[in-house]
């Protein structure tokens, strides 16, 4: 692999000496052309990290390297990055064209070139016809796209987006998601994208950095963080999950080329099952993660082999899917059913659960007290 576009080394930010660090020795490497999502709950330090990369805030410690050059103390206006703010931050005293041209003007690009590049940037976001508009005469989505055009027109070394979609309604958010991803792929702009919306991250990102309390809990591709969460937090934060405390028994064989094994595990109150996990887990306690839609639910016994019998405790209907909570002993498991499946379950009905061994994943970290997914 060539050298990374951006490396962040032990980046730390303390807002005050008596506070816990908002960002704590964060490390990350971003490949050229990738879109990386910084994903995490509110207050986990996403914005802080992004602002340090942008140069809007001085780190307490650590360094930021772009294209092999350390820029930790380079002032913001010398970093050549493009930033899109949550509030868009379009200049209210300039029209659309002037907004987009601003960065070019600061770079002393000739008027003629400015004109051409502004037009191209506006066309790229499909707003070429709105050049003369005042910014307050634009819809939220349009402002969003202008902000994106303004950041991209300068061909930034890095494109930084801080929750760019959070001010839009759900429908528009999805459209813009696709559009931003398409534009990013076309321009091949290396992008850091802050969001607390897991769907957004999974859909758009090449890599996801899952942050929690100022730390990165996992950095990987969307499938990695979803299928192979490294911690309880990641499994819980991304998608939904059932957690079961399991005692790991004997390894029953090699599962795949990635070096994972099949195990026999035992869960109190439920019995013994097959599971998958990294090698060397035998003999200790680990958490078992099973995604709700990977659970097979049947209202009749015998449809699967060796099902677990339980009772339906909660049903919630969302049109496309039916989510049920099934009580087995002192465990409650969440599962999903298709709505087309004939009889609709009722609370109190008997239900039978089963899953494939490959869908029961053992977290590599030592077990934490079992918490159930919401």
């Amino acid at each position: 692999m060539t050298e990374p576009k951006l490396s962040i080394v032990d980046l730390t930010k303390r807002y005050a000496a008596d506070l816990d660090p908002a960002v704590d020795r964060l490390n990350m490497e971003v490949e050229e052309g990738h879109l990386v999502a910084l994903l995490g709950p509110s207050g986990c330090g996403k914005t802080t990290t992004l602002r340090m990369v942008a140069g809007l805030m001085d780190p307490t410690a650590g360094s930021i390297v772009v294209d092999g050059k350390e820029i930790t103390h380079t002032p913001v206006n010398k970093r050549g990055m493009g930033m899109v703010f949550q509030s868009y931050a379009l200049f209210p005293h300039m029209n659309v064209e002037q907004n987009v041209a601003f960065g070019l003007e600061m770079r002393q690009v000739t008027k003629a070139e400015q004109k051409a590049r502004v037009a191209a940037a506006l066309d790229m976001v499909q707003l070429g016809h709105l050049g003369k508009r005042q910014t307050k005469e634009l819809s939220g989505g349009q402002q969003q796209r202008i902000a994106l055009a303004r950041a991209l027109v300068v061909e930034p070394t890095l494109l930084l987006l801080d929750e760019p979609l959070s001010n839009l309604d759900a429908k528009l958010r999805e459209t813009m998601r696709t559009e931003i991803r398409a534009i990013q792929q076309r321009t091949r702009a290396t992008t850091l994208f802050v969001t607390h919306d897991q769907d957004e991250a999974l859909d758009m990102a090449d890599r996801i950095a899952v942050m929690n309390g100022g730390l990165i809990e996992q950095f990987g591709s969307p499938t990695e963080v979803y299928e192979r969460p490294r911690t309880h937090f990641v499994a819980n934060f991304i998608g939904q999950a059932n957690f079961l405390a399991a005692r790991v028994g004997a390894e029953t064989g090699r599962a795949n080329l990635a070096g994972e094994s099949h195990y026999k595990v035992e869960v109190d109150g439920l019995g013994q099952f097959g599971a998958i996990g990294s090698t060397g887990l035998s003999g200790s306690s680990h958490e078992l993660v099973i995604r709700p839609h990977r659970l097979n639910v049947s209202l009749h016994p015998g449809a699967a082999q060796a099902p677990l019998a339980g009772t339906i405790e909660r049903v919630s209907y969302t049109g496309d899917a039916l989510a049920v909570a099934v009580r087995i002993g002192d465990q409650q498991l969440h599962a999903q059913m298709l709505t087309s499946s004939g009889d609709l379950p009722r609370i109190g009905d008997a239900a039978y659960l089963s899953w494939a061994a490959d869908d029961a994943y053992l977290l590599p970290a030592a077990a934490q007290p079992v918490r159930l997914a919401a």
Partner: protein
Amino acid sequence: MTVLEAPAAPERPSAQDEGQLERATERRNRRTYLALLLPGLLGLLVSFVFPLAYMVRMSFNQGAPDGVIVETFTLDTYIQPLTDPYYWRVTLDTFQMGVTVGILCVIVSYPVALFLARSTSKWRGLLVAIAIAPLLTSAVVRTYGWMVILGTNGLINSSLGGLGLIDTPLKLTNNMTGVTIGLVEIFMPYAILAMISGFGRLSPQLEEAAGSLGASKFKVFTRVTLPLCLPGLLTAFLLVFVLSISTFITPRLLGGGSVQVLATEIYDQTTGLLNWPFAAALSVILLVLFGLIIAVYQRLTKKIGG
């Protein structure tokens, strides 16, 4: 499965009915507002409209010597000042003083206002209070303060003299210089307040956005901060201008009789020479000057999109 049931639609009035209902409520509300406003409007009538009408009427009377007012309807009181170069000069001086004080006051207040508007400190409220605290003392007291500072034996002249920098005292008071210095300081709190309330569009994000687009600190200021402050600066200028050209005390006290502006002229005409009709005419001229400036101001604010 209750969740599957569609909720029963509550009975709703038709759209047309609803519209009528809304309009009726609106009418009723408007009437209530009017009724509630009535006492205030009456107060305004008594305390503002009547005196103003009285003044305008007075300006068409004829002032004879020794305070005798001849009830008549003449334009002499207007023709006299408008055809007299002296009053043109006084009007021009008044205007010029207003503009100078307005500009200087805006310049010295801007950094303070900008700092206060941007401050996120928990002391911000206190700092704002301190900035406008001078309003607690009357302009007369502050003017006397300036007389002490600017006088020939005042703080500035005695310090400069003591340091051997000057031989003869600088003439800082009893002239337009003194009046300007005094007015600028006296109106600073008003300017600061007007600015803080006029800086609504300013936001740190816009300045950060400009910075991230490659603008140096200086460029951020000239291209983003300053333009966004313009409406506030303009309002502050207008306020200080209007206050300056209508104020009497400071030009009188710090002007030492050498500064003749419309306000001091009006004072002399009323209390010194008892020529009320002439004073009323000068007041109307001053009022027209206000009107002109406010019209220009509104044009300008529209233009810069305040």
